[in-house]
């Protein structure tokens, strides 16, 4: 039985080596990369991921950075989510006014980059 035990340990080491080799040579990394890129380019998925940010000011700062980089669609989404957070926590209209004004101004701008809706 000791021989079997030794063999099992050796086999486990071999499995680790084979797994690593397979991991390295498996040809689907580019596919996965494309998949992640496609996932992030969809507006619904962006909204999903950004919902984890629970600070409207952080979203406002991120939105300002997007405006600087002329990524207006992304900036608009972040502002919308910031307003959503304010709405959720019962912010006053005057507090939300600055965000709403910025969003209205952004909506009037042409969109240089846009997330896909589908």
């Amino acid at each position, binding site marked *: *039985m000791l*021989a*079997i035990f030794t*063999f*099992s340990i050796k*086999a*486990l080491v*071999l*499995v680790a080596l*084979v*797994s690593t080799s*397979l991991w390295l040579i*498996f040809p*689907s990394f580019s*596919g*996965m990369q*494309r*998949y992640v890129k*496609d996932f992030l380019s969809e*507006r*619904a998925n962006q*909204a*999903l991921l*950004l*919902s*984890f940010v*629970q600070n409207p000011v952080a979203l406002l700062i991120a939105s300002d950075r997007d405006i600087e980089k002329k990524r207006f669609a992304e900036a608009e*989404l972040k502002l*919308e*989510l910031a*307003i*959503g*957070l304010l*709405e*959720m*926590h*019962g912010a006053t209209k005057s507090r939300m006014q600055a965000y709403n004004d910025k969003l209205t101004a952004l909506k009037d701008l042409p969109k240089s980059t846009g997330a896909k*809706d*589908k």
Partner: protein
Amino acid sequence: MRIFKPTYIAFLCYLLTLLLFSWRYYLGDVDNELFYNADALYLPSLFKNILIDGFNYADWTFAPSFYIFPDAIIYFSAFFLSDDISSQILFYAIFQSILFFLLTTVTLSLFVDRKIAWICSAMLCSNIIIMGMFSSEPYGISFISSFHFGSILSFEILIILLSKCLSPSSSVVKIYFYGLILFIGFASVLSDRIILFQFYLPILAIGIYYSISKINNEVLKIGILLLLGYLIAIILGRLFLPHSADLSSGVGFSSINTRLTALFLYTINLPLLIKISLLIAGSCFIYIVVYYQKHFLYSDIHHFKKNLLCLLFIVSAIFMFTATCLSDRSFSSRYFLPYFILSPLLFFIIASRKHLRVGIIVYSSLVSIGLLSILHGHSRPNESALDVRNFVTCVNQLTQKHSASRGIAQYWNAVPLYVFGNPRTTVVSVINDLSPMMFIYNHKEISGKFSFAVIDNDEDGMYKISRKEIDKRLKNSPFEYQCSGKTILIFDSENISLPKVSTLASLRKVVLGSFIKNPRSLLIMAQIEFEKGNDEIAAQFFDEAISLLRENGAKEDVIIQYQVKKNEALNSVTH
């Protein structure tokens, strides 16, 4: 090297049957339903979708078994050789048969004289091809992909490796074979889990028995390697492969009697030559059992390997039969393919010289009678089987005439229509209420608009698309045609969208929604789902947003705004 004359004749006989099959396939004299049924077209549709239409494999829900090794690899060679899908299917059948012939020859030559191995292998393979031309199951399955024939090829490869590992050799050579067993073990079970019951568990059980009885430790080592291969397959499968479709099955304690009756009735209804061939395969199985009973005490390496193969075969058949009995799925001969097809192979391995000669004579006679019957036209398929090609051509002409490119149909019609349809034509599988079937499909194709529908009048239940459901979504009456008894509806300058996704998918989205803590995120997602036509999910996202606002003390006017947006969206769909 001078070729022994009977070897030459046997090989020519095999080539002749292969050519005869190819010729009959092109004439349409073989059972088209075998080659063009939706399940058999799994790999052609997958290859067309990814390599021709440019979709991503990650968007697919694969078949319950992935059929990568060797099915997809063989199909890739066929795909590489021809653009025409009918030819790819024929090439697949030829390549699979040649691979089976080579593996059978190698397996036999490990135990018998090489010339005898060639003759026996040629006779066995010729018989399978001829019987396959008579009936789809069980022998016809040897021509097609995705019907578990690939697991027989894996079974043979593993038998060869098992035999090599048990032969005395240096430790370097052994490590090489262990590595190969691990790799083949991983690839085979990743492709088709049926081999778990056919080979892995039996070899592990025998290994434990041999180890406890102090007969041999090597078999248990191979069992452990196969088990590790299975573990790697689970991990890498989860990491790199998309979801696979689920078959609704559970544990059902149907009696062994019921299964035996099903097996008996199945055999009774087969053509006479198939019955004879199966009877011979059954006799070979009995011979294997008797051989093992007589020789299990012989411990020299030659007898040990033969005994092991016999025991493996017997235990494997018991495991497979038990697993089939415990499953509440209906009986299918394809689960027992190794025992129908490999029993004669094992007989040729263990038979005495005298019995071997009798076996060769019996199989040569069977092949000759089969060939003569085919040449006299006894195996012509019935007219209904020829309908698949006519039906697809008819629908293609109609969709081309009306410039319709996206349609819906029940699963068994949708896949052949997609595979053999006009370029850039998509046909999505739906069930009776027009909701997507969600079985072996690319989920990117479900959204959007559809301009034609196929209603199969011969079906009922979930496979009969409801005409009422289609009419409800149309303003004008559609153009109506008939193709092979099926109704083709081509919509008059309008489109329809599919109503909802399956309960499971919607459940996943709703669960996802409950994790999102931003009402505007939910609002955006709801609007996108509305645009896709998934009204129910969208409404649930809206509700989730409203309850999130309430929970967090949002002002009443904000909540009312969200409710107004929800009502507006719902009204826009209704009108």
